[in-house]
């Protein structure tokens, strides 16, 4: 169930971001600027689905079919300063925080913005924004 629900959540999040005009208007490649895997020579700025964690509910309990996940998103920008990254990150939160996403085979219990951080990449040129969302789902199928 773990991999299945993680993929279902990732797919729903990707679709929600690609379908958010306020976000895609800020990306160099529009809706194509939200990636699972970043192609070489991608135009900045863009957003990438990043790392995930998943912890299942305790077996033999009422939470056995519940999965608690976190999903990290990365924003990469070459704008001189953090303004562009922060604008994009605000649009990501607007698209996802407490959104009522449809997740295949699961009902969404909670989708909550939890954490963000911005910093300059060690290359000295690229701004990197990190955001984390917590997602709790319950299997329905």
């Amino acid at each position, binding site marked *: 169930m773990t991999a299945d629900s993680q993929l279902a959540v990732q797919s729903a999040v990707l679709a929600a971001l690609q379908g958010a005009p306020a976000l895609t208007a800020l990306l160099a490649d529009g809706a194509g600027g939200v990636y699972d895997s970043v192609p070489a020579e991608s135009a900045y700025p863009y957003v990438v689905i*990043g*790392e995930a*964690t998943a*912890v299942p509910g*305790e077996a033999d309990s009422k939470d056995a079919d519940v999965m608690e996940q*976190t999903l*990290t998103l*990365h924003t*990469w920008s070459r704008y001189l300063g953090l303004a562009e990254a922060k604008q994009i990150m605000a649009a990501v939160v607007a698209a996802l925080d407490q959104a009522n996403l449809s997740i295949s085979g699961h009902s969404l219990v909670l989708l909550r913005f939890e954490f963000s*951080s911005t*910093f300059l*990449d*060690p*290359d000295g040129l*690229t701004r*990197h924004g*990190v955001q*984390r969302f917590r997602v709790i789902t319950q299997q329905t199928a």
Partner: protein
Amino acid sequence: MKVTMTLSGQDKLARRLGHLQARIERAARGAIQVSAEELRDEAREALERGPATARRPEAMGRRAEESAAVAGSLFVEIDDDGLGARVGTALEAGRDLEFGTRETPARPWLFPTFEQLKPRIGKRLAEAVGKALKQHGPGRGRGRT
């Protein structure tokens, strides 16, 4: 780069249970200390295992060196009242490994470790407090000065 663990709500419980506060906090302190040290140790293991991948071969050696440096720099800080703890590193390389850079993909070592341990930490705290309450026993403490 650090994770903070704080126990909250104990003051409300203490108001209800009066003299049990000291016993509960003593039990919680022990559980928090053990949990913080466990998180540090597991995070160190996470840094020391796994492939050191990178988009450029020359970055791989650097990444292995960074992992070793971060693993050796991990700290545990316990609050003065013993009811909160921080586990982390002061090295920027810790953040670069956790979140990735343009050259090297993320290899998170702290947050996923904490997420995995959270149920165990919660259980440990609940057991410690439960044990303290049980040791106190019904009626004990009444009529004492």
